[in-house]
């Protein structure tokens, strides 16, 4: 009743192609953004910002990047952590080696380096498909893990292999409070989420989806697989690289190569599958799920008053996490985004039964 699509008469192509064609969606999105930018940093405490919101926002960005590749173009990648690492280390080197490098430029430069590496490791996708490709992308993961560990130039010759970033400033504002850091991440994520949504509704996004649905048929109707697959790898690794740079710079501050290991890649894949493949909103849902669940699982035994040792509770956490993933896949294999879509469908009629 309140939320409905009929009655919106579109009188121009522009209106028909709008990012959010339904007016209620537009209003809701603006309200959500306004709340995220003003109310949330004002209300949330430092712990909430540092441990929940900043990781959530950054991992959402990485999940969006991965979703472009896996959800829209259908090329499964298990090497996302490596592309995050490339972004983080490249941004670090730009920041440390070049005097007076603005933070934003360093972050985007990290993204560009990740793009180059991503396209390089995307080249095999022209020949290898499906699960074979998925396993081949592990090559990127292990090679880059080894590379940043062994090549000391990358870590600026630090003896332990860990690097830490200098104090961060953006446009003269020192990012010293979690609130400011959160706002920077949120602004970047908002920009990239809109850009990604814009990308997937355009010609290039449609090419990706055609390749995903059936690549031979797509080739027959005149889509170049090379162009489509490599652009997908490029766009995806650019976003993932920026997310990696943010993860290193804003969330961790100082990090070791292990921060971008295989676990991170798998975690990101979890996010987009639980959130919903081929859905930008789903990337946010999935990131929220993966960030919040371990924190909750950590707190449950304490709240119930069970005296568990850390080892036992971490094993239990593993078990519950694994079981929940299987449960979610069985109950809703299309992810949280599908639940959201179903909810919207229901909302169209609400409060009437038919």
């Amino acid at each position, binding site marked *: 009743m309140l939320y409905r699509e009929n009655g919106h008469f579109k009188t121009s192509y522009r209106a028909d192609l709008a990012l959010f064609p339904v007016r209620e969606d537009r209003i809701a999105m603006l309200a959500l953004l306004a709340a995220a930018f003003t109310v949330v940093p004002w209300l949330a405490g430092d712990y909430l910002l540092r441990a929940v919101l900043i990781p959530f926002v950054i991992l959402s960005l990485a999940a969006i990047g991965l979703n472009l590749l896996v959800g829209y173009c259908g090329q499964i990648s298990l090497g996302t952590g490596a592309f995050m690492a490339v972004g983080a280390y490249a941004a670090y080197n730009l920041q440390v080696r070049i005097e007076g490098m603005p933070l934003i430029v360093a972050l985007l430069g990290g993204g560009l380096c990740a793009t180059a590496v991503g396209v390089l490791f995307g080249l095999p996708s022209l020949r290898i498909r499906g699960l074979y490709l998925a396993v081949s992308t592990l*090559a990127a993961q292990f090679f880059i*893990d*080894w590379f940043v560990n062994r090549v000391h130039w990358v870590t600026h010759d630090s003896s332990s292999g860990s690097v830490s970033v200098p104090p961060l400033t953006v446009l003269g504002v020192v990012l010293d409070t979690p609130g400011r850091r959160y706002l920077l991440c949120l602004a970047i994520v908002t920009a990239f989420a809109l850009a990604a949504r814009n990308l997937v509704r355009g010609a290039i996004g449609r090419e990706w989806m055609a390749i995903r649905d059936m690549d031979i048929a797509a080739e027959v109707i005149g889509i170049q697989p090379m162009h489509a697959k490599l652009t997908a790898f490029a766009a995806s690794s650019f976003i993932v690289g920026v997310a990696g740079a943010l993860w290193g710079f804003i969330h961790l501050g100082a990090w070791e190569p292990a921060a971008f290991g295989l676990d991170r890649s798998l975690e990101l894949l979890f996010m987009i599958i639980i959130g919903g493949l081929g859905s930008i909103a789903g990337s946010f849902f999935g990131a929220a799920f993966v960030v919040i669940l371990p924190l909750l699982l950590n707190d449950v035994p304490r709240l119930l008053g069970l005296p568990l040792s850390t080892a036992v509770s971490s094993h239990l956490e*593993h078990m519950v*996490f*694994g079981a929940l993933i299987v449960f979610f896949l*069985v109950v809703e*294999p299309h992810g949280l985004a599908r639940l959201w879509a179903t909810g919207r469908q229901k909302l169209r009629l609400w409060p009437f039964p038919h």
Partner: protein
Amino acid sequence: MGFLLETMFGGLMAGMLYALVALGFVLIFKASGVFNFAQGAMVLFSALAMARFAEWIPHWLHLDSALLANVLAFGAAGMAMVGIAWAVERFALRGLVNQPPIALLMATLGIGYFIDGAGQLLFGDATYKIDVGLPKEPLILFENVFDGGLLLNKEDLVSALIAAILVAAMATFFQVTRTGRALRAVADDHQAALSVGIPLSRMWVIVWSLGGLVALVAGVIWGSKLGVQFSISQVALKAFPVVILGGLTSVPGAIVGGLLIGVGETLSEVYVGPFFGGGIANWFAYVLALVFLLARPQGLFGDRIIDRV
């Protein structure tokens, strides 16, 4: 020359273990179309079960014979793996019929987390020993051919023999028995197998049990060599390039791929590694498999990929 052969032999031994883990993968992939990320966790779980049961059973039953204890522990661990197979089919696979492969892959990751956690919760997370009485003393061969002969490990030879017997038994089972034939039918075409009356879910339990038993053997061999600890579940990561190199659907591919990767990895670490500062074994196998796949996208012995529009 002697050193080269010794290195190669070491590589073959490592490769045999990879091949065993890869064999579990291939069995499960063939019959249920699931790329089983949980195989590493299954190896860890079964090795932990074996190590701990071998410790506990003599206490419970007041046994003295180490052999009997080991046999009982092996049986108990095998039962545990069958239980896991049943649970996986009942609670995960049954609900995921007809889902895209990536959803199944994710489900096995979840299963892997669960088994990892459960194994360490039930059996403890320290380092344990498995002693099944494999001979430990070194063996020196061809003393009259090379200087100092070839230094080999009897334990390795025995485990290679066990692995070979296991593979032969598996091949016979698939070729000769009724169940084996049903499994091959399921691997060929799920729908056709269902329509001629083969119970799909029971076949899945059987094949996951077989995968579990192969994992158990791999776990016991690995565990008696290096001790049982969490890092065992990482062996599975080495088995991934093996399965794609050999082809996801081929049992001989798993064996040949495993041996190739094992030898290639060891030789590269010894002869090429020093130029790169060492530690290249981690990614070498993947790059080898990747380069190979560029020439032959379905792996060495995999089914040809045929696209229909």
